């Protein structure tokens, strides 16, 4: 099974919502865009592109629109797992995603209230919650999460922390080297 975390680069996000569509299709019965839009009930997305106005860095007083896809961070010490009264939400191992057992969920909404990122929601029927499962089915088949594959600007990546850290270290070296040259 592939291992890693979801990495978001908001500077790259164009808010096209391709990830939202791909997510819903990946969690559909048919796994096919054209067929999934006819399914009953309709499949649901677990990722949400959100936008906020952020003050520009130059502080010139105008606002920049910043958009980014947000999904479950699969916290190590997950508040949602802690608070879940029926143990519907579980995280079995450090590198495992936070997963939901739909049958155990009683729809109490505690997890929605404690989630720091606002990425848990009620499902369409309103009976239980719905959240990102890191595309565990796909990971088992050695495929990347659907949102990662769908992103046309590579604003969403799936990497191990080591891979991310390595890239940062390299970039840091390049940056100070080029600063010295100038």
């Amino acid at each position, binding site marked *: 099974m592939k291992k890693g975390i979801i990495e978001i680069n908001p500077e790259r996000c*164009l808010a096209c919502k391709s990830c939202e569509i791909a997510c819903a299709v990946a969690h559909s019965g048919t796994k096919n865009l054209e067929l999934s839009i006819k399914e009953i009930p309709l499949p649901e997305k677990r990722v949400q592109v*959100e936008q906020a106005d952020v003050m520009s860095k130059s502080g010139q007083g105008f606002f920049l629109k910043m*958009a980014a896809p947000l999904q479950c961070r699969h916290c190590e010490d997950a508040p949602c797992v802690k608070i879940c009264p029926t143990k519907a939400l579980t995280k079995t191992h450090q590198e495992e995603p936070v997963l939901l057992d739909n049958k155990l969920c009683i729809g109490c909404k505690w997890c929605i209230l404690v989630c720091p990122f606002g990425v848990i929601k009620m499902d369409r029927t309103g009976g239980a919650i719905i959240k990102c499962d890191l595309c565990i089915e796909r990971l088992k088949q050695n495929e990347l999460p659907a949102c990662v594959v769908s992103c*046309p*600007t590579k604003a969403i990546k799936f990497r191990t922390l080591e891979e991310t850290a390595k890239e940062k270290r390299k970039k840091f070296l390049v940056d100070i080297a080029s600063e010295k040259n100038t």
Partner: protein
Amino acid sequence: MDKATQEMKKVAEKKGIETAWDRYEKMIPQCGFGELGICCRNCVMGPCRIDPFGEGAKEGICGATADIIAARNLVRMIAAGAASHSDHGRDVAHTLLATSEGKTKGYSIKGKQKLYDLANELNVKTENRKIEEIAHDVAEKCFAEFGQQHGELQFTHRAPVKRQEIWRKNKFTPRGIDREIVEIMHRTHIGVDNDHENLIKQGIRASLGDGWGGSMIATDLSDVIFGIPEPIRSISNLGVLKEDEVNLVVHGHEPTLSDVIVSAATDKELIELAKQYGAKGINLAGICCTANEILMRHGIPLAGNFLQQELAVITGVVDLMLVDVQCVMPALSKLQSCFHTKVISTSPKAKFPGVEHVEFSEEEALPIAKKIVRMAIENYKNRKKELVNIPKEKMELVAGFTSEYVFKMLGGKYRSTYRPLNDAIIAGRIRGVVGIVGCNNPKIKYDWAHITLAKELIKNDVLVVVTGCSAMADAKAGLLVPEAAKEYAGKGLQEICEAVGCPPVLHMGSCVDISRILTTLCNVVSEGGLGEDISDLPVAAAAPEWMSEKAVSIGFYAVASGIYTVLGIPFPILGGKEITEFVTKGLENIVGANFAFESDPIKAAELIIKHLNKKREALKLKPMMYEPPVGAASPVENKNEKRNN
């Protein structure tokens, strides 16, 4: 935002009714590929999208770059816009033709002088001929402009000779109105024109077929049938709707039906019928450009502009809303079910699910109009008292300015001439003339950009001319009355307005009537003293809240006519660097004008004033009569400081 709009938005919110503003919020964030113009659906190898950050796809499957895709998309917008205006023109030509053959009910030829002038221009014989015969030939000649395959559109010859030469040299002169639109569709098919500059050039050609073809025909033939407008007083904003009268609101763009509705609504029998139903009378009001058409000629009140169409229904007192074509939101269908309002579609080209259709034809115009007015009266009794919320807000206005009237107004009745206008510019009383046009767009604070820009310009002695939804924004803000000069205009412009008795912002009609601005500028050039071409004049255009494809076509014919044009929202092309460079800089070398994108109306005003000053300098005109001495803070900068505080 005006109080009436604020009030109605609150009512909508309370009732849980969605409006365009709410739907916009739900649409956020909007797709960046679309905004940047770099997604292509022109063939089904795609859809293709270019990654503007360069990590993903740099080319479409066919190899199209961001510039090619953005250019193809943009010129297709021009094609749609030019098609819309021109089809409107075609319908007016059809009405004139049918009227000349005696086949219509409810029309006559009211603008006889205009008909004779057009006949002379189009080489139609007038001596010893009946007016119907002349009208017939003029209509046929105009009809022929649409399908013409070679040669030049007749009205392009109105332009200054220098301008015509630029068009000819660059192959911009449209051969036929329809032909240039069709050619855009061909060129943007996969694997045809893949040079973004060449694509834009065809876009220019089609847009000129709109401004100097379809739109000009629409305006001129409307003047022939319905008469040339003259300054007329009226009122604007949702407060024009009446609680104790049958409210019939016309919405859309064409004058053919709305003008007959004016006759039907003043029909004695129908007014009597309204009284039988318990109403005190029939109150006709309008939204969008069909409203501007009957405002200009009959002084019918303006209920509101584009973003007020839903709010009008939400007042709960619109007994019938009649719609024709363009800018009619499909949302009206669902909205009418929350109220007693009956929305009626009338054009075979524009139907809406859930909306009753009463098809309009010129042949039976008056009977159909009467039928619709009767439907409105019969619906009066269905009003639900608990749903009635009429805002009080209304504002006086003067409309009805045309290229013909500018003569009379400034020159006096007995010496009609553009001389005083030209002299006022030359002497530095007026800095220049700027057209502010275009739509509303929920992306921009409602009406704010229109009004702020207009105020800023007149403060700096710029005469402002307006059409369409922009005119309505200024009307509601009280800028279309002569008294506004004293309150808002600079000293030089104030003097002119006081001498003539005109407002500092002149309402020139509907969006096809932007052709009136073109004709006016041709007259200013030929009057002399201000250069030999439109691009020499200290003039500019702006569309601070535009949203429609028609606005894209208008922008291009304005720039291609030599008018610097500032857009409040950029064209969806920014993903293509070269095409952006071309329309904002490169076009200057070809047509003597280009586009600028600026969403802040104060900064837009600065850009425009800078441009007017540059043109004045090039013409070696006198310095502005009441300009503060060099070194002192200009009024524009003062305003900025205020804003930052």
